[in-house]
């Protein structure tokens, strides 16, 4: 997902860059009669609007379908088997988890809250890529459903600034076979 976001951003940013450079290069010679220029520019803008709309709206809808599991009541992965549950409480500045070992390929229900201030529960895979996260907030429990695809030791990092040892607030989840 990060790779896709990066590449889509680069493409869109490059398109804007080319457009701006094109205008800058063509800014030197003056077209005295602005009226016809405006009319053709408005015509192009209408096309641009519809092009952007036709790309953006399906993309917007597509990204709403198949939301990450925390948003769905349906818990799609539950077909595979009963979820393993981890109860997480964030503290300044450590994580309290009632289990730190789960099975690979089996859905895990992670119930996250906080005993003090806002924290963020971010799960990093063995390549140190963020694969899932939720805010840990006092008085509320945020639930995520995640299926670990690979075995190994995953790291948990705090994703919400919580004070002087925020960057040290790390723990691990071990993912293995049963």
């Amino acid at each position, binding site marked *: 997902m990060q*790779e896709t976001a990066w590449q889509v951003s680069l493409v869109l940013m490059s398109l804007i860059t080319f457009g701006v450079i094109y205008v800058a290069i063509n800014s030197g010679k003056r077209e005295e009669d*602005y009226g016809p220029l405006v009319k053709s520019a408005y015509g192009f803008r209408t096309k641009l609007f519809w092009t*952007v709309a036709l790309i953006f*709206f399906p*993309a917007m809808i597509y990204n709403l379908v198949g939301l990450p599991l925390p948003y769905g009541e349906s818990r799609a992965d539950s077909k595979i088997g009963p979820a393993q549950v981890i109860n997480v409480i964030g503290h300044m500045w450590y994580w309290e988890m009632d289990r730190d070992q789960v099975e690979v390929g089996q859905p895990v229900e992670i119930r996250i809250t906080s005993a*003090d201030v806002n924290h963020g529960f971010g799960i990093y895979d063995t390549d140190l890529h963020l694969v899932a996260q939720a805010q840990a907030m006092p008085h*509320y429990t945020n639930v*995520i459903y995640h299926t670990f695809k690979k075995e190994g030791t995953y790291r948990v990092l705090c994703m919400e600034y919580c004070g*002087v040892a925020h960057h040290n607030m790390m723990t691990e989840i071990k993912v293995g076979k049963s």
Partner: protein
Amino acid sequence: MASYTYTPVPDTGAKAGVLAYLVVSAVVLLLMMVFGLLMRLEQSQFTSIGGLWFYKIMTLHGAGMVGIVALAGAAVMWHFLRLYVDLSNGIFMANLALFLIGVVMILASVLLGDFHAGWTFLFPLPGTSMGLWSTGAAALFMGGLLIIGVGFVLLHLDIARAIITRYGGLGRGLGWPQLFGHDDGNAPPPTVVASTMVTIVNLIGLVVGASILVMMLVNLYVPSFEIDPLLAKGMIYFFGHVFINAVIYMAVIAVYEILPRYTQRPWKSNKVFLASWTASTIMVMFIFPHHLLMDYAYPKWFLIVGHIIGYLNTFPILIVTGYGAMMIVYRSGIRWDMCSRLLFVSLFGWAVGAMPAFIDGTITVNYVMHNTLWVPGHFHTYLLLGMVAMVFGFMYYLGKPNENAKDSPIDVAAFWAFVIGTLGFTMSFLYSGKISVPRRYAEHLPEWVPYDRLASYFIVLILAAVLVFIFRFLSRLGFASRDYQRASLARSLATT
């Protein structure tokens, strides 16, 4: 009816108050940039100031930057808006005085009281210090923010009063009669439309922000006065997002006013323009849930609103303001000087920064990129290369000695250093976000350090450029207050 004829407007010098705003902005901006460099140097492992100082500097950098860009944006808006409506100089200066009082309180809270809960003062962190700062320090910080907010409320109330007096209502300030009825060509100029939008959203945003600050101040001393953390978070992000967005909508007035002077082409408030500003008024207030996508305790529809408006919000920026600037510059014969360069590049910075922003507002992306360095990556792009470039363009405009004055090669070099430095710096942020580096970390893992170091080098380049911009502005303050023709005429016009 749309007219394609430019009506020349005399270039007015800045009032002393506007110059005071800009001088304070320049000095504080520079200081906050140095703080930004200090943070990146620490993450680069070039220094070792430690977590406490890192987070104190981070708190100052955040609060200072948000405050100072608001002040600079207000200076741009006030300078041009007073050409159309009757504004109170006293209120304008009162805002500056309250701002400075607030700054002193915030500085004291952080530097003397060790407060370091971040500028977002997310409840209940300010009151949960683990003994690292006192209740008084937290109250001083939040009180400082509150006083700055009160100053801006006064300023916006005065602007609302002036627009209502001149145009008959805020709806008329947004050009609704022309938008929803017959476009008789008498819609308010872009400056008035933008100022009306900013005033509406900021008054609402500031009242919400002040409310949560007061609630938290009471809670500091009377803990039995309980606050729902989810409500507090929503209120804080509503205020914070509206307020920081509004600074760009204030500063873009410099583009609307100055670029037409260079190109001798009008920037008209036609129906599309009016529609985009009315749409922005609404969207800026409803886009904030994109900060809360990882709080699943919120209703699902609330989060989907953030996702959808994140996409829609790019339309007015790209299709109307960005495209409009391209239109009046294309084949205009514009003479490029420091002012026109900075204003032109500012639209680029705004539009290009909006891309990674809306992508992060996509829920599936946010799930793995929220609170990574992707976030400062996108907002530094549109604030630094967008909003701040607008302010520097405005400063060059005010200080230009005459319409034919040539820029020194140092200034031109500084411009390119600023553009390249900002792109390099923000791309380092974005790339770090792509590889999942969390934001607001005093210490980085060894894998992340190379990108931090790269960013640090680019910040040094930005700082060198900004020093030139600020030095030039301060050395030309004498010109800034006088009335004379500043903008170079477009090529063929200048020779006839």
